Each structure stands twice: as C-alpha cells, then as structure tokens.
C-alpha cells in the first residue's frame, strides 16, 4: 500500500458541493412531463370502518385529476414485511402486512383514506380538505395499560427471540448485598428527518419507475413488484440523495398509494408528504416500559441483572423495540433474566428509529447502573470497569475486539471526570445546579446478507464501483471511495462510487449501522475477482506471472507482490498488453460468518456536564464528550459528524422528544415541528468526540457501524448528570422541566 493511507483521512463529503449549490436532486425534485401532484386525507378514528366517504366536492375542485379511495383503487397485494414475526423475508421493505387502501377498514388514527391528484400541489392540498368521511368506530386499544391487559406476546427480530435466562436471577437479586429494582419508561418518537418523505413515480406500461427518499431501494423495488403483481425487474427505484433517513426512509403506504394513483390516472405522480402526513403515516420508535434490577456484592460485582418489560407494536407488524440487547452483552453477572414482550395498540406501523431497541434499552440499563453505583457508594466508571465481561456474558462467544476500558480511561481523562463532585446537588452556580454524568453507549454489530458489487477498471486507471447502496448524508460514498482507492492503489480522484439505484448489484439495507460493513465486504470480494482476472490476462510476460490473487495487493496504480513489492505492474500495462479497454467484474459478499463466530459490538463512554435551573427546572447541557470504540474509522470527518449527530438525538430523547397521542382516540397531537420538539442550535453544546481507531480483526475492513452508537449513551448520560446536579432521578422520558421542579 502507499505510505500515507487514505483511510481515516478527513476528506470532505463528495456530495457536499452539490447540496450547497442546490444541484442535488432529491426525490421530490425530479421533473417529469405531465406530472400530477398528490395529497392525502386521513382517518380520524383508530379502529373501525369507513361508513361513508363523500369525494364529490373534492373531485369538482379546480385542477383535480382524480380522487382515489378504497372504492376505486386498483387491486394490490399485501405489503411484504421486512422484520415481522416468523421467517424473515430478506428482500421485503414494509413495516406491516396490510394491503393498502383495499377495503373500508381503519387500523389507526391517521391512516390514509383518500388520495387526491391535481395539477398543482396547492390544488391537491385544497381538494383533500373537501373530503368528508363518516365512520363506524370499534373499540380501539390506545393505551399501554389496555394493551397489557389484553395480553402480551413474545418478541423477536430476524428469528432471534428477545428472551435470555442464565441462572436464577430473582434468587440472586434477593440474596444480593446491594440492589436496585426500578422501572423506566420511554415514549413514542416519530421520524422527522429534515426532508419529509417524498416519492415521484411514473409507469411506462408495466414498468414502474420510482424516485424515492429511501434507504432500502432494492427491498422497495421487490415489495412494490409483489404488491402490483409484476416482475421485480420491472420496478426501478432510484434514490440518489436522501435528506436524512434514520431508519424511517423505508417502504410505507405513500409509495404504494402514489404508484396506484399514477396507474389509475395514467400520469406521473409526485407525492411529497406534508409534515402532518409524516407524523400520521410514518411510524417510529414505540414506547417501552422496562424493569431493570441489579443485585451486586458489596465489592460491586453483579450477581444478577434483570431487564424485562414491554414494548408496543401493532398486530399487523409485530416489530419489537427490542430493548434488552445492551443487557445481553455489556456486563458480566452471575445470573440474567432478560425479556422484551410485545403489547398491541392500534397505531401506525412502528419502525426502526435510530438505534432501535438499543437506545431505550441503554437508557434504562445505564441509568440503573448509575443508581447502583450510588447505592454502593462507588464511582460509576469504576463500577462499569469492574463488571466488564471476558466474553459475551449471555452466549459465551468470544469478543472480536473489545476496548471498553481504554475508552473509559481516555474519556474520563479528557473530560476531567476526576473533578466531579459525587454528592448530588452539591455544586451550585447562582440559580443553576451543576452536574456531571456518564453512561456507556452500546450497539451490536450487524452485517445483513446480500451485499454485492460491480467493479470496473479502465485502461486509464480509473475504477468505478457500483452497489445498490444509499447515501443519506452520512458520507458513505466518500468513505467508501477512500477504501476503494486505498485497496486498488489508486488516487482518491480516480475512483467513483455509484449508488442509489435498485438495478445495481446487491441487496443492501441502509440501516442497522451495517451499510459500511456490507459495502466493505462487497468491495473486498469484487477486488478479489478483479485481481484474479487481471492476473489471468497479465500472462507470463508480466512481472506478476505465477502469483495468485491472495499474493498481491493494489499499489501505485497497479498490482504488486505482497512479498516482493518490486514485482509490480500497472493496471494500464496489464490491460494494454491484453488489448482490453476495461475489465468488469461482479462479486457477492460472503455470508456474515463473523456474526456467528464472534460477539461483535461497538461501544463508547459518554460524558455530560449540564445545569438545572433551581427555580424553573430548565436543563441546559454545557458539554458532551464521547470516547468511542467502533473499530477502524474510515473518514475522521464524516465519522465525527455521525457521532455528533447521534449525541444530539440522544440529548433530544433525554430532554424533549415525544410524539403525543391523545389516548382517547389514538390521534397524534404534535404533528408539526413547532410542537414536536427536537433540539435547536441553542440546546446543543460543544460535542467532543475521540475514538480508539482499533480495527476489528474479524470484520470487513475492520469497521463497525457508527451511525447509531452515540445516541444510546447520550440519553442516560444526560439523565445521570441531572441526578448528579439535583438528586432527582426521573425515570420517564423526556425529562421536561415540570419533572424537575
């Protein structure tokens, strides 16, 4: 390899200039002749049937092309479901199994009941307000208490049941010298990316083209094909730019409705969801109620860890906010009792929202550890270090790479943890109570099967990699271009990365913090195929003659022997001798065996200093530090942005984020960004991030996911700092000022 590695360099995002110049076309910005514009009308009951639906006035409104309801929608199959119960359908992209707009049944308050197409967006919006519906309502389940009373069910994801029992945890808890046993609650949160969900669709005969804000393009193409009963290759989904995804930019009803309405009208359709539509039809994180009990010896070693509780979902989707993950792998204990059960409410299908399960689960676990540290009179960092496991504590697998202690020590040093006053409420600055808190971040490693890449190498020494992957602002294309250039021995500028198109190779989920690992594995496989072919055509005249693909590396614009780097030949020379302009190879990533053999996880130590106003209960966060152990960092700039973004989401979850439901009818109340609070600039302090940058020997390119990790620890770090500041332990999020008065 070249002496100065491209990997890790803080190269600015390739898509940055396009975005600041307004040249990047998002899903709602594809111009198509004959476009019509869509608006939705929503149900106002949570369960029942539509009794009457009067669309006459809407149809007669200026510019209206048509109104589609369950009475005239084309026949469509049910939504293929991505993460439901039973055998996973790896190609599916939907959040529930409902057939869209096929009958008069209402399943949640805010379900689309009609689509209006008009010549302009304004005309469609206006006409949608003229639709009149009446309902025959049935009793709906709109509270957790009702849902629990109806009975709970086992939960699982990808066939992994959320239940772990090791030893007799209750007995160990009862016998423990010191223990805590508390319940935490976390609320619903809705996806509210800066770019609302949007899609532009056009039919060409039986061919369907969808320009979509999307992080699962191939899954979406497959699912739409199933729904419309057409060949998968007849559906073409593009998503060149996405204005924030966070797990929410998957397949929802709006893409299905837009395609159906386009079919009905025989015209292209743009459906750009209003913020209200996002909040009524796009699911997010559901609420959890979690008991965490930890029993410890007087020395602080955990005898028992109990983490059980309930999360809400729908009967139609059964996706769990699986909060026990962090407790399965983060601390050693004599006995474990971990279980996440499902309760069913009549709500929009919930989905993955950044660090699903891990975020609420880490909040509960890490606050409980803090509570135990107080009960023990121990420093919470020393307590965590004391209980670090040697291997995965619940399944016994070895860790692939585990540097939690280094992260804690480095973070504590940089943050100045030693200056913390351990006595709650002891530090005051005028009206303000000052506190410091810490918490671990946890996130398990995932690499979903299906990765593949096409690699093209030209005689000019340029490489192009094509993968059906996604760029939602994280810097994926930039970081992976660095990887490709480094591995091939090319300059960064000689590499291009093509993505955001479902006709490209691979089945890549742009979620689960797994895209980088998936792409890395695909790139390695494709490079191996490319090298094999290069050596084949190089022939006996090449200095590389006789070497195999495993005996060479990309170096200085060509291939070189690993053992004897002077045995080198440029790509240009190899191709020229063979009379080839270019070589094109395609290869699939190997199955994710590393996930079977090893316990792989990202972790981090999160620190927070904040103030709580003694008069009003207002919280102001002064500084945050994350000390991360997330494998090899491919690009220091994009990685630190990812880390900081997660921290901001964690602050929001701690202090203000909540989707408010009226429990009388299951209707979402705060459907605008004025009322659905997320942190504004003034709420976000300086965020410092450092990392170990230790490559994981078991993962492709040594990487872990890092898109979601920091959100998990930031929330409990804030909650623990609030306790340190005030002596008040608030166990239900968000921690608004009324809970601190």
């Amino acid at each position, binding site marked *: 390899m070249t002496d100065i590695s491209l990997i890790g360099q803080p190269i600015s995002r390739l898509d940055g200039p396009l975005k600041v110049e307004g040249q990047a076309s998002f899903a709602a910005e594809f111009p198509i002749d004959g476009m019509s514009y869509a608006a939705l*009308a*929503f149900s*106002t009951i949570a369960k029942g049937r539509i009794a009457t639906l009067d669309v006459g006035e809407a149809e007669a409104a*200026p510019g209206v092309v048509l109104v589609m309801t369950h009475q005239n929608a084309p026949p469509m199959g049910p939504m293929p479901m991505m993460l439901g119960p039973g055998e996973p359908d790896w190609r599916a992209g939907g959040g529930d199994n409902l057939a869209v707009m096929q009958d008069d049944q209402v399943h949640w*308050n805010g379900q689309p009941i009609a689509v209006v197409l008009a010549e302009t967006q*304004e005309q469609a*919006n*206006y006409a949608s*307000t003229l639709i009149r519906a009446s309902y025959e309502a049935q009793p709906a389940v709109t509270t957790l208490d009702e849902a629990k009373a109806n009975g709970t069910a086992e939960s699982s994801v990808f066939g992994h049941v959320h239940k772990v029992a090791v030893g007799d945890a209750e007995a160990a808890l009862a016998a423990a010298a010191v223990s805590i046993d508390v319940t935490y609650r976390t609320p619903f949160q809705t996806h509210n990316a800066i770019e609302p969900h949007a899609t532009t669709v056009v039919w060409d005969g039986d061919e369907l083209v969808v320009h979509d804000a999307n992080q699962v393009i191939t899954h979406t193409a497959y699912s739409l094909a199933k729904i419309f009963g057409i060949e998968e290759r007849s559906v073409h989904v593009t998503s060149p730019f996405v204005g924030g995804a966070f797990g929410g930019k998957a397949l929802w009803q709006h893409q299905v409705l837009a395609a159906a309405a386009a079919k009905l009208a025989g015209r292209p359709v743009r459906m750009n969801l209003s913020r209200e539509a996002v909040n009524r039809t796009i699911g997010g994180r559901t609420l959890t109620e979690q008991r965490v009990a930890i029993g410890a010896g007087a020395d602080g070693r955990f005898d028992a860890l109990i983490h059980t509780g309930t999360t809400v979902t729908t009967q139609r989707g059964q996706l769990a906010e699986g909060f026990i993950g962090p407790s399965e792998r983060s601390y050693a204990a004599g006995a474990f009792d971990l279980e996440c059960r499902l309760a069913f409410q009549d709500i929009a299908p919930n989905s993955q929202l950044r660090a699903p399960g891990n975020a609420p689960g880490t909040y509960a676990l890490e606050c409980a550890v803090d509570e135990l540290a107080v009960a023990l009179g121990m420093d919470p960092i020393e307590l965590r270090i004391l209980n670090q496991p040697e291997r995965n504590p619940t399944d016994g697998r070895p860790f692939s790479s585990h540097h939690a202690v280094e992260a804690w020590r480095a973070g504590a040093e940089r943050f100045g943890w030693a200056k913390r006053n351990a006595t709650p409420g002891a530090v005051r600055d005028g*009206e303000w109570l000052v506190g410091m808190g810490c918490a671990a971040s946890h996130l398990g490693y995932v690499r979903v099967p299906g990765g593949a890449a096409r690699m093209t190498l030209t005689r000019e020494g340029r490489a192009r990699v094509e993968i059906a992957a996604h760029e939602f602002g994280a810097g994926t294309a930039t970081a992976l271009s660095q990887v490709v250039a480094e591995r091939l021995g090319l300059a960064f500028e000689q590499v291009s990365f093509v993505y955001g198109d479902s006709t490209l190779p691979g089945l890549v989920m742009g979620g689960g913090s797994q895209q980088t690992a998936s792409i890395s594995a695909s790139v390695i496989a494709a490079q191996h195929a490319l090298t094999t072919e290069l050596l084949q055509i190089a022939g006996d005249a090449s200095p590389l003659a006789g070497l195999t693909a495993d005996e060479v590396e990309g170096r200085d614009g060509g291939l070189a022997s690993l053992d004897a780097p002077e045995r080198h030949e440029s790509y240009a020379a190899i191709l020229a001798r063979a009379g080839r302009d270019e070589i094109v190879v395609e290869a699939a990533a190997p199955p994710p065996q590393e996930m079977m053999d090893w316990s792989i996880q990202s972790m981090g130590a999160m620190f927070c200093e904040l103030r709580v106003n003694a*008069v*009003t*209960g*207002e919280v*102001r966060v002064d500084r945050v530090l994350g000390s991360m152990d997330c494998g090899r960092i491919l690009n220091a700039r994009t990685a630190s942005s990812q880390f900081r973004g997660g921290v901001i989401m964690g602050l929001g979850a701690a*202090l*203000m984020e909540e989707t*408010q439901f*009226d429990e*009388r*009818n299951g*209707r979402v*109340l*705060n*459907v*605008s960004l*004025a*009322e659905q*609070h997320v*942190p*504004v*600039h*003034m*709420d976000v302090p300086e965020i410092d991030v450092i990392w170990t940058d230790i490559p994981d020997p078991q993962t492709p390119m040594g990487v872990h996911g890092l898109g979601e990790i920091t959100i998990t620890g930031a929330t409990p770090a804030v909650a623990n700092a609030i306790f340190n500041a005030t002596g008040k332990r608030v166990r239900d999020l968000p921690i*608004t*000022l*009324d809970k601190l*008065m």
Partner: protein
Amino acid sequence: MNPFTYARATDAADAVRLASTTQAKYLGGGTNLVDLMRETIERPASLVDVTGLPSTIEERADGSLLIGAAVRNTALAEHRAVRTRYPVLSRAILAGASAQIRNMATVGGNILQRTRCAYFYDAEGSRCNKREPGQGCDAIDGHNRTHAILGASPACVATHPSDMGVALAALDAVVHLQGARGTRTLPLTEFHRLPGDQPELETELEPGELITAVELPALQLAAHSTYRKVRDRASYAFALVSVAAALEVEGGTVKDVRLVLGGVAHKPWRAWKAEAALRGGPATEQAFRTAAEAELADAVPLRDNAFKIELAQRTMVAVLGDLAARTARGDM
C-alpha cells in the same frame, strides 16, 4: 388552503375600505395567518395586505412612542429607544420565534396571534369551540400541559402565545384602531378577551377594524424592566410561563411595579392583584412570594398543567428579585 383574493392597501382608510367585504382578513407578515390558512383553520375570502402601512417608530414630545402596526418585530426589538427605555419589550420580542420569523412578523399581527392549542389546529380530527363554536373542547380533558390556569372557561382553556403582548401589557400600551366608524383607542389589557362562552371572539375588535399603531406611554420605571420566558427548549418554543416585569424600589420599598404573566391565560395576564399587594410594601423575597401567591390564588389546574401554578409563582419571585437586586446595585 382555500382560494382567496388579495389586495394591497395604500393607507389605513384604504385598508378598511378593502376589508369591508365579508370574510376579509388583514395580512401582516403572515407568519401565523398563512400557517392557519394552510391548515384551513382560517378561510378568508380575501386578504388585505397592510404591510405597506406606516412602519415608523415615532418618539413623541411627551416621551411616548407611537409604533406603526406594520413595524417588523426585529425593527422594534432593535430600536434604540425601546432597548434603553423599554428593555422588557426588546427582550420579549427576542425570546419569541426565530430571527427569520421576527423579520417578517408585524406588531399588529403579533398581537393578533391565535392560540397554539393542538386541538384548535386539528380541524379534521378534534373538537374546538374556538374553531367551531358549540362543537365542544377536546383540550379540557385531553393533553393540556400547555394550557391556561387563569381565566379559562368550560368552553376553552387555550392560551395566548405572544411574548411581545406580555411586555406590552406591562408597559400600559394603548392600541390605536381604525374602522368604518372612525378611530378609537383601547388599553392593551382590555384589547384581548377571556374565553367565556364565546372563545371564538378573542379581541374587542369590531368587524373590519384595523390596528394602526401601538402607543407606549412615557413610563419611567419601564427602564427597570425585564422579561423571562420558561419553555421546553432553549429557543423556538412557546412559553410554558413567562413574566414581564418593571420595578421601581426606593429605600427598600416598592414605589411602583408592573407584572404580567404569559402562557397562563387566553390573554396576557396583567397581575393586578400582585401589583396592588406589592405597591408601597417591602421589596423582599417574602413580599414577592406573597404577592405571587395572591395572583395565583384563583388558578385552576387541568390534568397536565398544575406545575404552571408553582412555576408562575417561582418565576415572578425570581424576576422581581432580580430587578430589585439590579436596582440596588445601580446597574439598570
């Protein structure tokens, strides 16, 4: 948004004439009205744009300020006389909305902002007596953490969202009006109504009547004034409770005081009882607390907003204490 016609007025008389048709609305910066039109809460048949009307701030010989109704919030907050002689007003404006919104919003429009009650906004799915008189109120037994604790009625528990209006109520501001029947003035404290059994009527404006200016009388103690807003995040959130106050202390005795609460009622809530209790009494924390408790004695909590009673009292005490301390230090 419903279809509407648009006309731009050249002066107040022209505006009143243009708005004499039924279902006309005056359009200022549009930062609230246009939102409400998009949500179909407001469905005016015509809009009369009054942003071309006087937007000057006139410093008059008697020491008063006459602020044109079309003055933008930013211009008012930045005005030198306002910052030095009425700092509570600058602070209140800057505590509201965002810079972009303040650049658009006008003084007249700010006073006429409508409530942010979620049920008021949900035209399709919720009942609201303010939006549809006689329909019922879903807020009284629903999510009402941000709702009124003072002066509410069984018909409506909404709050007035303005920050600027809270400061104006503390400054004895007078609203200048012009209508088909001529001009008149009203103290700001009498301009907004409590909901009673007609929550759809939010002000004393006659149909077609226009706010032309807001007058701030010369008020010496206003130089010793401030605004404190308590909310769920550091910026861009409506007040859970806000306090506008002006205080004049002489020899440890309260010589004069102005005290107004925001976020607690259907209008900026002038704390007349607390003011009366404070005037002539000692400027002590105990006296501030007693006065604040007197003002909140009649407060009625709803399911989710009982905390506002204590929060309002604490904030009043803190603001008065802060003003008294700064006066004592001579740094105001």
